[in-house]
C-alpha cells in the first residue's frame, strides 16, 4: 500500500464486488463519454521519496538568504525555536476552527491568553480573537467607527503604510465611505491640517506609529480633537515598539490595531501574519470577529466560551458592520508564545536593541559623504536617508555583497530597517559598502 493512496488494488476489487459494479468505469457511467479525459496528463513519472527529496533540494539551493534591510511593515526579527516547535504540535497545527467551539477548551484558552496579551500591550480593555492582518484590521476599525457614529467619512494620515491605505480605500469604496488623507509636515501627520477638516462630519481619524517613514507619531492631540466632535480615534501600532513608547491607552485612543508580524512571525511572502484589534468597553459590541471569554462550567470550574456572539454576524447579517466570523488562530498562538517568552522585561530589552541598532546605523550612514538625513523626528527601527547616488547602484552593490537593500521612498530617498538581528559587524560592513559607492 502506498502512503498517500490508501486503497490497494484488491481493496478496490472487494469494494466493487460488494456493491455489484463491474469496474471503476462502470461506477462513473452517468458521466458522458464525450467529456472523459483520454490523453495522459504530462506530469512526469512518479519519483521515489529519495528522488523527490533530491529534486526539491536542487530547487531549494537556488534560493539565496540575504541580510534583510527591507521593512515597510514586515521586519526581520528573530524567531525563538520554541515557537515553531510548540505551534507544530498537531493539536494546534491541524485542528480546524471548532464549529462547536466550547468543545475545544485548549484552543479557546490560548485565544483568551492572546487577547489578554493584546489588552496588556495596548492598555485597552477588550481585544478580539484576531483578524487576518494589520491592513484588514485597520480597515475593520474604520467600519467600526462608521458603524458606531453613523457617519461615513474617515480621516487618515498620509503617512499610513501605502498598503494600509490601499486596503482602507478598497473597503471604503464598497461601503460608500469617504476617505480623506491628512497632509504631512516634516514626515508626520499635520495637526493643523487635521483641525481644518475635523468639523463634526468625521466618523474617526486613523494615525500610524511608527508611521510609514519609521517616525514616531503622538496621536494624543488627534484623539482629543476628534473626541470633541464625537468621532473615534484609531491608531495602527507596531506592537513590538510598545515596550518603549506610549501605549494607545496613554494616547487616549478608542481603537488600537496593527500587524502582529513583528512579534516573532517569520517573513513569509504575504503571510500568514495576524491583525489585532483592541478597544474599550464602549465599543466592545462593535468589535468584528470572535471574542473568547472566561466563565464557569456547571461544576463551577473555570471554562472558556465564545462570547458576545449573538450578534449581527449570525442573525442580522444585513445589519452587520463587519462580516468577519473567524480569526487567525494559529498565528495568535504564535505571537502569544513569543510574548510569553519575552515577558515584560524582554519586550523592553528587544525594543531597546532595535532602537540602538537602528540609531547606530543611522548615525553612521548620515555621516557618509553622499548621504544625509531627511527628518528630525524620533524613530524606532526604520529610517529614511537621502542620497545623491543612484538607488539602483546601491541595490546592486548591496545585493552582490549579501544584503537585500531598503525600500525606495522617493527618487533620492531610501529607507532601511535595522532590527535586533543586525550585528555590529553587519552594520559596519553595510556602512563600508555604502561609503564605497561612487558616482557613475
Amino acid at each position, binding site marked *: 500500500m502506498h502512503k498517500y493512496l490508501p486503497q490497494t488494488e484488491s481493496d478496490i476489487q472487494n469494494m466493487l464486488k460488494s456493491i455489484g459494479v463491474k469496474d471503476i468505469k462502470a461506477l462513473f457511467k452517468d458521466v458522458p463519454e464525450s467529456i472523459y479525459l483520454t490523453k495522459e496528463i504530462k506530469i512526469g513519472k512518479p519519483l521515489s521519496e529519495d528522488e523527490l527529496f533530491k529534486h526539491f533540494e536542487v530547487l531549494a539551493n537556488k534560493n539565496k538568504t540575504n541580510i534583510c534591510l527591507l521593512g515597510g511593515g514586515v521586519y526581520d526579527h528573530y524567531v525563538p525555536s520554541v515557537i515553531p516547535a510548540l505551534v507544530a504540535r498537531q493539536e494546534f497545527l491541524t485542528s480546524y476552527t471548532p464549529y462547536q467551539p466550547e468543545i475545544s477548551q485548549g484552543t479557546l484558552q490560548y485565544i483568551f491568553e492572546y487577547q489578554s496579551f493584546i489588552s496588556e500591550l495596548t492598555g485597552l480593555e477588550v481585544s478580539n480573537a484576531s483578524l487576518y492582518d494589520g491592513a484588514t484590521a485597520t480597515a475593520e476599525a474604520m467600519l467600526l467607527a462608521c458603524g458606531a457614529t*453613523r457617519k461615513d467619512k474617515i480621516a487618515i494620515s498620509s503617512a499610513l503604510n501605502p498598503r494600509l491605505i490601499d486596503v482602507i480605500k478598497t473597503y471604503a469604496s464598497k461601503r460608500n465611505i469617504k476617505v480623506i488623507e491628512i497632509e504631512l509636515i516634516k514626515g508626520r501627520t499635520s495637526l493643523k491640517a487635521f483641525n481644518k477638516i475635523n468639523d463634526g462630519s468625521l466618523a474617526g481619524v486613523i494615525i500610524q506609529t511608527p508611521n510609514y517613514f519609521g517616525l514616531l507619531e503622538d496621536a494624543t492631540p488627534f484623539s482629543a480633537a476628534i473626541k470633541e466632535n*464625537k468621532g473615534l480615534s484609531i491608531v495602527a501600532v507596531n506592537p513590538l515598539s510598545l515596550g518603549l513608547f506610549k501605549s494607545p491607552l496613554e494616547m487616549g485612543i478608542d481603537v488600537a490595531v496593527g500587524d502582529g508580524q513583528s512579534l516573532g512571525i517569520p517573513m513569509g511572502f504575504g503571510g500568514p501574519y495576524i491583525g489585532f484589534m483592541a478597544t474599550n468597553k464602549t465599543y466592545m*459590541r462593535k468589535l468584528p470577529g470572535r471574542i473568547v471569554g472566561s466563565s464557569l462550567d456547571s461544576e463551577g470550574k473555570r471554562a472558556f466560551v465564545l462570547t458576545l456572539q*449573538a*450578534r*449581527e454576524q449570525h*442573525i*442580522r447579517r444585513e*445589519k452587520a458592520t463587519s462580516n468577519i466570523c473567524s480569526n487567525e488562530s494559529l498565528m495568535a498562538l504564535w505571537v502569544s508564545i513569543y510574548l510569553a517568552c519575552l515577558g515584560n522585561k524582554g519586550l523592553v530589552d528587544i525594543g531597546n536593541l532595535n532602537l540602538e541598532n537602528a540609531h547606530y546605523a543611522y548615525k553612521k550612514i548620515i555621516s557618509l559623504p553622499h548621504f544625509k538625513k531627511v527628518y528630525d523626528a524620533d524613530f524606532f527601527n526604520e529610517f529614511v536617508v537621502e542620497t545623491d547616488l543612484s538607488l539602483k547602484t546601491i541595490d546592486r552593490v548591496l545585493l552582490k555583497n549579501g544584503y537585500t537593500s531598503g525600500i525606495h521612498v522617493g527618487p533620492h530617498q531610501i529607507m532601511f530597517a535595522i532590527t535586533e538581528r543586525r550585528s555590529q559587524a553587519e552594520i559596519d560592513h553595510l556602512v563600508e559598502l555604502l561609503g564605497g559607492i561612487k558616482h557613475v
Partner: protein
Amino acid sequence: MKIIEGLKYTKTHEWIKVNGNEAEVGLTDYAQQHLGAIVFVDLPPVGDSFKKGEEFSAVESTKAASDVYLPVSGEIIAVNEALEDEPGLINSDCYANYIAKIKINNPKELDDLLDAKQYALIANK
C-alpha cells in the same frame, strides 16, 4: 398580554408615552415575551436625531436580536442607563422601563400610531 390604555403603539411592537412635546419609548409586552430573556440593549447616543420608523436601538436576547424603531421623528434627550447593567428590566416590567426619552419633532406623526385597542388586534392575532 399586557397592553396599557393611553399609550400609543406601533405595528413593530414599540410603545410611546407622550408628555407634552416629549415622550418615552419602549418595547411592548408582546415584544419582550417573544424575544425571551434580554441580555443587551444597544442604547442610542443622547443628542442624535432619528426619523419616524428609523432604528434607534437594538435589543439582544438569548435567542434573538432585534432592531427597535422610533415611532415618531425626534431627538434623543435621555436614555435609560439602568438597562446597561440590567437589560432584563424590560422583561420584568416593559412599560416601566423605557429605552429612550425623545423630543418629538412633529406631533402630527402621532396620529398615524395605533391606540391600545387597535394594537391589541395585532398583538393578540
